[in-house]
């Protein structure tokens, strides 16, 4: 077994040269081997080991509160000793059972008589000598261990049969109603003989001594002074005399002025009443009556009241001084709880408080006011209804509502940038697209800014008045408009032609996808493609029919006003082109640059001229009256073509879409002249992307792929189809999308036309 040596945990608690082992260090039924080592500078010495068993060294403290009394019974005197067990540091050890031992001796003697008491804390000593003073002590012990020390001594004198009685003491005198009073005394030891007690009193200023008039009314050891014998504002001198055979003894005198010793009885008739006024919370009214003996009616005795209450489970009383009134209203009690209330009183001047009246219990009724409940029920029903309705609405129209509340944030789109390009990763084109001039738009088409680059239309003659005389005046009108100082704004609408709606239509960037168009247009059933708008909400704008020479000023329909010409599209040009079908040359798509010519300024006309033939050719191909096709002739490299990038070169036919159809762009091989119809009435759409917008009038359409491959066109067309789709629907729109796709571009890999190249003053 291990032998660990510990050091004393506490040298201080028990004083010097001591070691205190607290509960943590004390283990019962173990033996401790304790040694003390004394060390000084020279050396050390240790004591002999001491083996200590904790349980064997238990010694309690001495008992306390030892009291002694002599009693007589059956003519014998006995001593009655009482004491208390020693107090313990921790009260938890209540289970300790002590054994006690008593020792006593007469004062003068030396030898103690020891009496074993057992576990009681009192004892009667019988055999006593009378007339002797005894000394008494007591000690205790636990089950195992040692006896405690003896308690402190107590002495008592055993009266013998012939001693005068001990001095009585007057306890108190009281008057309950300020009309009579009573005095009580406490007798002392009677000295072994029956003792008589007499009360004697005298009044202030008088020498006469009287005896108590009534010893009985108020009980033993008392004296009752009735009304006749009670005088106020006089001091009584009262003493009690104890007499027995051996002598008598007087108590100390007691001076009393009846005025100041009034202590009334407690109030009576404590009643509670619950009052329920109409508009207020119910409250409790507590009423009581003064004690019956007190004569309050004559004003002789005025009482003040005080009440106290507490909740039944509570611990502290709340005391409320009420004054002289005999009722009290309580407002602030908690419903449903039980309260205890008590009242007492005292004279308004000198005097003492009465006893508390008997406890009165108050049960506050829980007050479910109907009004409150109804209100809560209604509130609950309404809110649940609202919740139901809202959730229902959400379920049914959730999506729309959400869209309504939180409109989708349009993605950023930049004019001239073909996202397709982005996808394909042709950065060059992208950059070139970004380099368009005229950006940013200065008009008020803020909202389009995000989405489109504005391609500035340098003046423009796009809408070159038709070469064709037959050209509808519209065109002419357009042109002037075109030359508006408001350059850079293209609109597909001619001011005159266009309704306001059209005006709103912004020049569409050629490269914009129809989606953009859509966005610009907001929701016009999708048809608000720029084209359509250009077309003017009225279909009349673009009317291509062979016969009519209407030229739709379609995209030519620029926005003469400062419509946010975000889109630049070649309005006039397109329009012209579109009208080509109608044998008008007006329409020469702006984009359609003259292959031959490069002039920027009048590409239209030129192209018109040039294109006329071609258009006619085209016409043949699509002679749908209700369709307008715009042929986009690709510009041969024509630097000067304001519209066309020399590189652009493709024609794209734009088929006007019937009402219910989508616009279809046909890409048309410039060279081939083959005009394949890709139009699928109403179904397929072939589109080309608008590559750029030249000026604001010209939309440059660009097929996604090299235009030269017709087949290719389809695909890209499809992409742009959505753009055109807008045009569909109810309106006849013609899209004049001229996508001067440049072969060159393709070769260069870029499908975009550099708007800047278009920009050259297009006079």
């Amino acid at each position: 077994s291990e032998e660990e040596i510990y050091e004393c945990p506490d040298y201080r608690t028990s004083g010097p040269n001591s070691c205190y082992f607290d509960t943590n260090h004390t283990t019962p039924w173990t033996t401790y081997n304790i040694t003390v080592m004394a060390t000084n500078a020279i050396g050390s010495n240790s004591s002999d080991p001491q083996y200590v068993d904790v349980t064997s060294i238990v010694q309690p403290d001495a008992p306390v509160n030892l009291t002694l009394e002599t009693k007589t019974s059956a003519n014998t005197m006995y001593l009655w000793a009482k004491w208390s067990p020693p107090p313990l540091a921790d009260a938890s050890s209540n289970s300790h059972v002590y054994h006690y031992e008593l020792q006593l001796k007469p004062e003068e003697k030396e030898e103690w008589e020891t009496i074993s008491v057992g576990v009681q804390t009192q004892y009667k000593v019988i055999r006593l000598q009378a007339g002797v003073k005894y000394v008494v002590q007591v000690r205790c012990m636990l089950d195992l261990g040692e006896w405690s020390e003896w308690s402190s001594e107590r002495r008592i004198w055993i009266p013998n049969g012939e001693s005068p009685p001990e001095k009585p003491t007057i306890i108190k005198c009281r008057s309950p109603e300020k009309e009579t009073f009573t005095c009580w005394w406490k007798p002392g030891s009677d000295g072994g003989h029956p003792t008589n007690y007499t009360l004697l009193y005298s009044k202030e200023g008088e020498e006469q001594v009287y005896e108590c008039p009534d010893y009985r009314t108020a009980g033993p050891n008392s004296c009752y002074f009735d009304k006749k014998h009670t005088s106020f504002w006089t001091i009584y001198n009262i003493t009690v005399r104890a007499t027995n055979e051996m002598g008598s003894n007087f108590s100390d005198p007691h001076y009393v002025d009846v005025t100041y010793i009034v202590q009334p009885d407690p109030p009576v008739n404590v009643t509670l009443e619950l009052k329920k006024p109409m508009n207020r919370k119910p409250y409790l009214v507590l009423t009581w009556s003064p004690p019956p003996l007190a004569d309050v009616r004559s004003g002789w005795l005025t009482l003040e009241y005080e009440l106290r209450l507490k909740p039944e489970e509570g611990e502290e009383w709340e005391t409320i001084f009420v004054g002289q009134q005999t009722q009290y209203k309580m407002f602030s009690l908690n419903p449903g709880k039980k309260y205890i209330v008590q009242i007492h009183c005292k004279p308004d001047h000198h005097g003492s408080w009465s006893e508390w009246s008997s406890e009165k219990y108050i049960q506050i009724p829980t007050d479910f006011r109907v009004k409150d409940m109804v209100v809560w029920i209604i509130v609950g029903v309404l809110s649940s209804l609202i919740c139901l309705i809202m959730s229902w609405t959400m379920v049914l129209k959730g999506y729309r509502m959400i869209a309504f509340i939180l409109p989708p944030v349009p993605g950023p789109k930049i004019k001239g940038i073909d996202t397709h390009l982005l996808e394909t990763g042709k950065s060059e084109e992208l950059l070139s697209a970004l380099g368009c001039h005229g950006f940013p738009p200065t008009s008020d088409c803020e909202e389009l800014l995000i989405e489109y680059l504005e391609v500035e239309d340098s003046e423009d003659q796009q809408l070159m008045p038709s070469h064709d005389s037959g050209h509808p005046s519209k065109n002419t009108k357009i042109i002037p408009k075109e030359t508006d100082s408001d350059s850079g704004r293209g609109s597909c609408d001619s001011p005159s032609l266009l309704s306001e709606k059209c005006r709103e239509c912004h020049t569409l960037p050629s490269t914009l996808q129809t989606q953009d168009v859509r966005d610009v247009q907001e929701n016009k059933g999708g048809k608000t493609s720029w084209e359509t708008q250009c077309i003017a909400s009225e279909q009349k704008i673009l009317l291509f029919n062979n016969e009519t020479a209407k030229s739709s000023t379609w995209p030519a329909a620029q926005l003469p006003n400062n419509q946010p010409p975000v889109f630049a599209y070649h309005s006039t040009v397109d329009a012209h082109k579109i009208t080509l079908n109608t044998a008008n040359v007006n329409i020469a798509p702006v984009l359609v640059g003259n292959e031959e010519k490069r002039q920027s300024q009048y590409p239209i006309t030129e192209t018109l001229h040039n294109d006329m033939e071609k258009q006619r050719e085209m016409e043949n191909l699509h002679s749908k009256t209700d369709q307008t096709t715009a042929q986009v002739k690709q510009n041969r490299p024509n630097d000067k073509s304001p519209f066309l990038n020399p590189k652009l070169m493709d024609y794209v036919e734009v088929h006007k879409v019937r009402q219910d159809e989508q616009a279809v762009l046909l890409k048309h091989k410039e060279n081939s002249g083959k005009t394949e119809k890709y139009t699928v009435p109403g179904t397929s759409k072939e589109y080309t992307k608008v590559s750029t917008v030249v000026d604001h009038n010209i939309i440059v359409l660009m097929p996604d792929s090299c235009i030269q491959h017709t087949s290719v066109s389809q695909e890209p067309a499809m992409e742009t189809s959505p753009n055109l789709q807008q045009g569909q629907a109810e309106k006849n729109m013609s899209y004049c999308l001229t996508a001067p796709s440049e072969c060159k571009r393709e070769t260069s890999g870029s499908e975009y036309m550099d708007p800047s190249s278009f920009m050259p003053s297009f006079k």
Partner: protein
Amino acid sequence: CHTSGMLTPNGKEYAQKIPREELTHLILKLLQAWKEPLSHFNQHHQELPDDSLSKAKQISNMVHELKTGVEKVTEKARFSINSLNGMTSSEAAGLSISNEANMMSDSDFIHCFRRDSNKVQSYLKILKCRIMPENSC
């Protein structure tokens, strides 16, 4: 007490038996009897702490006001009472020798004053309930 010689009812019954005018007269006499001793006390006990002094002054004021009030009540009730204005305190107390009131020790002074004020209070209450029984009597 210098007012010990005054014949005053010693109990409720006595106080209720004597006629109201006499009771009122008695009250006034008591109040008058304390007027001079109080002022004398205030003058000669300047060494007391301030709050005691102010209390003593306050008390003598109250006594004066009380006397005034009782006199008013007397007028209203039309009691025929001999005016006491001319009396000195000693005369009111029924003392033949003046200045006796001023020779009390302080503790006696306070004790006597306490008692007499209690007397006055009790008599007034009885008087009140006899004149106007409906007010909380």
